[in-house]
C-alpha cells in the first residue's frame, strides 16, 4: 500500500511538473512582481490551455491524495 502510494506520488509529481511547464507563462517577469507592472492584455485562454488546466487539476488532485494518504499511513504506523 505504502509503496504503491509512493510510486503514484512520484509519477504524478513528474507529470505535474511537465504539465505546469506546458502552460503558457503569464505575467511579465520581475518588474510586475513588486508592483508597477502594466495589466496584461485580456486575451482569452485557448482550448489547449483549457484542456491543460483540466488535466493539471486532475493530476494535482491525485497528487494531493497521494500525499495525504502517505501522511496518514505514517501517522498510523
Amino acid at each position, binding site marked *: 500500500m505504502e509503496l504503491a502510494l509512493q510510486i503514484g506520488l512520484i509519477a504524478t509529481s513528474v507529470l505535474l511538473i511537465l504539465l505546469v511547464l506546458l502552460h503558457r*507563462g*503569464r*505575467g511579465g517577469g520581475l*518588474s510586475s512582481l513588486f508592483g508597477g507592472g502594466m495589466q*496584461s492584455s485580456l486575451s482569452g485562454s485557448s482550448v489547449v490551455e483549457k484542456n491543460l488546466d483540466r488535466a493539471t487539476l486532475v493530476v494535482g488532485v491525485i497528487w494531493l491524495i497521494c500525499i495525504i494518504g502517505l501522511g496518514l499511513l505514517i501517522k498510523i504506523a
Partner: protein
Amino acid sequence: MLGAFRSALATPDLRKKILFTLGIIVLYRVGALLPSPGVSYPNVQKCIANVQQDGIYSLLNLFSGGALLQLSVFALGIMPYITASIIIQLLTVVIPRFEQLKKEGQAGQGKLTQYTRYLTIALAILQATGIVALADRGQLFGECQDDIIPGDKIFTLILIVITMTAGTAVIMWLGELITERGIGNGMSLLMFVNIAARIPYEGKIIWDKGPITFTVICLFGLAIIASVVFMEQGQRRIPVQYAKRMIGRRMYGGTSTYLPLKVNQAGVIPVIFASSLLYLPDLISRLIGGSQDSGWQRFIQQYLVQQDSWVHILVYFALIIFFTYFYITITFNVNERAEEMRKFGGFIPGIRPGRPTSEYLNFVLQRITLPGSIYLGIIAILPNFFLSVTGTGNNQNFPFGGTAVLIMVGVGLDTVKQIESQLMQRNYEGFLR
C-alpha cells in the same frame, strides 16, 4: 472606503475574481501546512519550538511563510521563482539574445517568462535537495536531536525532493491562475500572504513582552507603514509635450503629459539582493567547517551574522544603496526612453530631443534615486535596532519593518489599484449605456 468595498463585491465579475483569488490563497495556505511524506510532523514541531532561528534561513523562511522549516509540501514557496526571475533579468544585460527577446515585445517577453519557468524548476530541485540533505543530517535546526526524517532510506529522501519540486510547480501554476483570472499579480500576492501569515506569530512574541511594548510597537509600525506608502507613491513628473500629427484622418497627440519617475523606482528588489548577498559568507562558513573556531569564521559570526552589530548594519545599508542604483541602471534604460519619446514626436519643454533628453533624464533619475535608496536602506535596517524588543534574532521577520513591510505595502497598493481600475471600467460602461 467601505463603500468601495461594497461596490467591488456588488459587481458580479469583480466579485468572482476576488473570490477566486481568495480560494487559491486558501489552497496555498493548506499546502504550506501539509507536511511532506516521510517527514515526522511531531519531531519537526518539537525542533521548531526548541530552536531559535538563525540568520541564514530567516529570509527564506519569511518568503515561504514559515513553511520551509516545517518541511511542508510547499516548503520552497515562491523563492525559486523570484530567484529565477532575478537571474533572467540580470542575464538580459549579459546575453545579447535575451536582450533581443526583451525588445521584441509581447512574444519575446513570453519566451523569457518560459525560460524563467524552466529555471524555477531547476532551482527548486537544487534547493529542495539542499534542504532535505540538511534536514537529514540534522543540521537544519542546529542542535536539535530529534530525527526529522525517520527511516533514512535514500528512497524517502528522493520522494521528498520530488514532492517539493512538484509543489513549487503547483505554486507557480496557482500564481499564474491568480494573475490570469483573479486580481493582482499572483506571485506577489502569494508572497504577501506568506508574510501576512507570520504576523500573528510575531505579534504574540511581542505581546509576551507586555501590553505597553505591544501598543508602542503597533503605533510605531503604523507610522512606518504610513511613511512607506508616502514614499512609494512619491514621484517626479517630468512634463512631456507631444506634437500633433495626422495618422490617416485622425489627429493624434498635441497633448502635454508627463513622464513619472518614482522616488523608489526599484521596489524591494535591492533589499532582496543585499540580504541574499549578506547571507553568502555565513553559508560558506557553514558549508566548509562545522567548527566555528577558525579566525575568519569567528569574524563572520561576530560581525556579519550578528544582526545588531554595526558592521552588519553598515554593510547592509551600503549594499542596498549600491543595488538600488545598480538595478535602476539595468531596468530603466534612459537612452531607450529618450529614443521612444523622439519617435512619437514628444519632447521635454526646453530640452532638445535625443541625447540631451537622455542626459537630462539620467540626471533627474540619479538625483531622485538618492533619497529613494537612503529610504530603502533605512526601512530595511530599522528592525535591527529593535532586536532587544523582539529578541528572537530573526529580525527580517519583524512584521513592521524591513523587507516585510516594503513588500506588503507594495503588493497591497498594486492590488488595490487594479481593483480600482476594474471598478472604473465597470462604472464607465454603465455610464455610457
